[in-house]
């Protein structure tokens, strides 16, 4: 299984030359199996770049199929949806899978994003491709093509998001983004279970440990939370993800270096661009 980060930034897309190496696009991660099955996680602005790359494949002819998992519906995880070009090509088939946000529905939330005030698309029904919105309860298991997926709710400030443990090609990738545990060194039981023995753990690293003191309760992790969980759960590799919009390339370099000095597990700063073999 390969992983490619199309968007690694948290909260806000950042443009400019200080953000070129890690990238300024918001959350979007692609997984590809050896057999060619694809899965996309989140539709931040990074998804618009992925969309462009898809247009030269079967998606350009309206013959593409792609499942998309959503961690949650904060804008930085869905803002690429109205601009995902293969959605405008008849014949393409998409499944968007996510949990209902507390007190509302996934479909209603995405419809609201495309409501006429906000978007000239005026609703999901005007996307030319087939786009089905499917919900699951966090905690359930999903089988999608070659991917076996375990889901769980993890705390995110006053709400929660869905964490994923994704197995394919005998490898496991765990995605825990937009997550804040009761304390950085006390991951929830569900988060620990998703990460246990994973080959790669992709973890929220929005704050450096000093900045976290000011940001407690806002729903994101300091770098040390991912480092701690990676060690406790015995993962193969840790990818720091959901970088702060204020973190320049140089700042992320320092963050990764500091994290690496505290663990023997290989640590990388998630960066847009290359495919990584898990």
């Amino acid at each position, binding site marked *: 299984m390969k992983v490619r980060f199309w968007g690694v*930034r948290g*909260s*806000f*897309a*950042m*443009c*400019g*030359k200080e*953000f*070129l190496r890690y*990238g*300024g*696009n918001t959350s979007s991660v692609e997984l590809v199996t050896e057999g060619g099955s694809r899965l996309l996680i989140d539709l931040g*602005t990074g998804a*618009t*770049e992925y969309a462009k790359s898809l247009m030269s494949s079967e998606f350009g002819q309206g013959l593409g199929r792609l499942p998309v998992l959503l961690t949650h*519906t*904060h*804008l930085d995880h869905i*803002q*690429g949806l*109205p*601009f995902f070009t293969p959605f405008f090509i008849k014949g393409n088939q998409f499944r968007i899978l996510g949990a209902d*946000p*507390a007190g*509302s529905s996934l479909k209603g*939330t995405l419809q*609201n*994003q495309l*409501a*006429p*005030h*906000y*978007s*000239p*698309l*005026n*609703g999901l029904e*005007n996307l030319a491709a087939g786009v089905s919105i499917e919900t699951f309860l966090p905690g359930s298991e999903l089988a999608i093509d070659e991917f076996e997926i375990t889901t769980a709710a993890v705390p995110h*400030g*006053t*709400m929660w998001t869905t964490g994923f443990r994704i197995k394919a090609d005998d490898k496991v990738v765990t995605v825990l983004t937009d997550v804040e545990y009761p304390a950085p060194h006390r991951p929830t039981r569900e988060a620990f279970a998703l990460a246990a023995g994973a080959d790669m753990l992709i973890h929220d690293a929005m704050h450096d440990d000093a900045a976290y003191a000011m940001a407690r309760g*806002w*729903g994101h992790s300091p770098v040390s939370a991912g480092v701690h969980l990676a060690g406790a759960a015995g993962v193969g590799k840790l990818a720091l993800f959901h970088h702060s*919009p204020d973190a320049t390339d140089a700042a992320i370099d320092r963050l990764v270096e500091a994290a690496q000095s505290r663990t023997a597990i290989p640590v990388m700063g998630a960066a847009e661009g290359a495919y990584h073999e898990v």
Partner: protein
Amino acid sequence: MDITFWGVRGSYPVPGRGTVRYGGQTSCVEVRTASGASVILDAGTGLRALGQKLARDSGATLGRHHILLSHVHWDHIQGLPFFEPMYITGNTVEVYALLTAADELQQVIGGITRHEFFPVPLEAVPAEINFHEVDPGLPMTIEDAQILPFALNHPFGSVGYRIDADGTSVAYVSDTAPFNQVLHKQHFLPGLETLTDEDRRVLGDMRAALVKSLHGCDTVIYDTHFLPEEYARFPHYGHSTPDQALDIVAGNDVRRLILYHHAPSHTDDQMDEIAARYKEQGAAVGVDVITACEGMVLSVGPRGTS
């Protein structure tokens, strides 16, 4: 009067190597008069950096900020929840927008800060936020700036603004389609529709009111999202070309046209070509054409002195 461009991109923010020079953030322009009064045009993602600067500059001084919205498509409001002065108790943010038929403005703005989209709900924002309805054709005064709103041709309605202060003027015309092929109303357009006689009359009136509002304006910022060949494929998307903008301002006593709301697909190198091409075309009709880039500051002196 100083005009600062904080976001010049249309549709969605575009990070990466291709947008380093012209900028990737979406619609946001700040107009500051000589007295220090400031009017913010649109609250796209460019608003975040402007908010950081305002919060830094003001120190402990509380302030009143005026944000004029052209319309509430995401690329014009997405920066609002990230506007730092909103998180300082005692600040006031006045938001002006067209009241659309279907909903109350506050609900629409409140909608973007629902917890499904953003962690802080509008009610929990510490600054005082007031909403004002804008009526095309009805002048308003904000501190020492005279503001004239006018209607534009864009899905679900959009409004432009002319700002007169310090003996000079600037106009903001974004987003808008031209006024000949499509009349945007409040429904989804999968392509071109046949225009009725009534549609043509409405379009003609809208164009005439726009031309009149822009007459004698020093600097006009215009939605020039498309190149002509792109417009030909997407005439129903609600955006114009630089040629269509020139058609409105040429011969209308406008000194300077600013190309704005760049398509997300236009890289810096393409933007250089667009800038050169329309500099020349503008010169041929007596209009100084400048292509907006993020961070650009234009000083507009009294008419005839700058």
